[in-house]
């Protein structure tokens, strides 16, 4: 069973519909930490602010369940806010996060005043390292972004994709059985669905 983590942060049903569309028909929306622990794979989605999201995760016991799930070695996919909460700390509300991946969540500080924050729209992702979940896409493909914050990891080896928005930021990260995208792959057309489909085929083994 594929668990989609529900912590009142965004439209989990969009993710579920996208899963169904690519044949992941066992995708279940859940707020139950035990269901997350028992899942074969987990999607950790999210939009909005990490401030309240981190509290909701904690109140539902989902933070511990996600951490346990990560250490089980089974495939874990973080999307947008989910890609941010897996790191150690967020500038947004000065919140400690899950700490599965060493890094910080930072707000865009763009020198060019014509660039708007949030970064909303379709932007290119340069693939800097190959990964099984990226088998259906090519470097330079475009995906749909909506965010004001991004992840800055400690270890450059965890970076799989980069995007330019006035400054270069990490748009895809991976470590062991964890893979994350800052963009909304569930709203990024056929190519976004291609990542989701490949995630469904991935057994969680990191590329060597």
């Amino acid at each position, binding site marked *: 069973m594929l668990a989609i983590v529900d912590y009142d942060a965004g439209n989990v049903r969009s993710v579920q*519909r996208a899963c169904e569309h690519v044949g992941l028909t066992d995708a279940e929306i859940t707020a139950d930490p035990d269901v997350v622990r028992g899942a074969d794979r987990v999607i950790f989605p999210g*939009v909005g602010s990490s401030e309240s999201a981190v509290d909701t995760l904690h109140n539902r016991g989902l933070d511990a369940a996600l951490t346990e799930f990560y250490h089980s070695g089974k495939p874990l996919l973080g999307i947008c806010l989910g890609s941010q909460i897996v790191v150690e700390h967020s500038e947004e509300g000065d919140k400690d996060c899950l700490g599965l991946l060493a890094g910080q969540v930072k707000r865009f500080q763009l020198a060019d005043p014509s660039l*708007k924050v949030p970064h909303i729209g379709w*932007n290119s992702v340069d693939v800097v390292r190959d990964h099984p979940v990226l088998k259906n896409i090519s470097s330079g493909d475009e995906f749909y972004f909506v965010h004001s914050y991004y992840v800055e990891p400690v270890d450059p080896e965890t970076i799989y994709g980069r995007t330019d*928005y006035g400054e270069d930021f990490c748009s895809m990260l991976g470590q062991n059985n964890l893979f994350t995208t800052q963009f909304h792959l569930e709203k990024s057309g056929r190519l*976004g669905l291609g990542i989701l489909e490949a995630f469904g085929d991935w057994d969680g083994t990191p590329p060597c």
Partner: protein
Amino acid sequence: MLSKRIIACLDVRDGNLAKSIKFVDTKDIGDPVSKAREYYEDGLDELVFYDITASSDKRNIMLDVVESVAKQVFIPFSVGGGIRSVEDANKLLWAGAEKINVNSAAVQRPGLIDECSHALGAQNVVLSVDIARVGASNDIPSGYEVVINGGRTATGRDAIAWVIEGEQRGAGELVVNSIDADGTREGYELTLTRMVAEAVGIPVIASGGAGKPEHLYDVLTEGKADAALVASMVHYGDYTVSGLKQWLSDKGIKVRLKY
């Protein structure tokens, strides 16, 4: 860098597609779900549905439309028309819309923007503004006035002051719809679009008047819009989404060409 977005607007009345000409005479032109899917497959970046259903007892038809679209179309889409509360907005999001559009109801009760922004997140709240050119006066220094109820009612509010207030109240994006240009197919209102784009820090979607690819080019460059909304020019088959994007790309505008 970010691509410029091409957004198709589908006016839906009683579950059917309608396209207004100057906001007065509307006629039905087809099924919104199949049209949405056709555009999605042809590379559309985003969809907007405006529910122009007059009677409230038929509003639930829109939820069915949203639900069907959400199962087949995997790009962002927003829904507007008739949203008066967070509850209305939540129903649409749950049915599968990504964002909600508020317009007249927000002018009548500006707190609606704050409430929706707080409940759904600013990124999910689009403020749509219908604007008429009236000439500068003491009350309307910009010369552009906010109008409501499909352009039939003047409000006495300055359009530029209103979009700034809308941003402060928590709107995440703006649709600038020129009543004067809407349905004419003679080009967007460039002066107005540019004034708004320079007044706010959130993305601006230009609406009303698109008839030729050149119009999109003009509003995305001179008009400083982040996205261009199209309707009749694609609904009646004169242009395709992919054709428009290729044309813009050939002119040096960054648009998403692989989909």
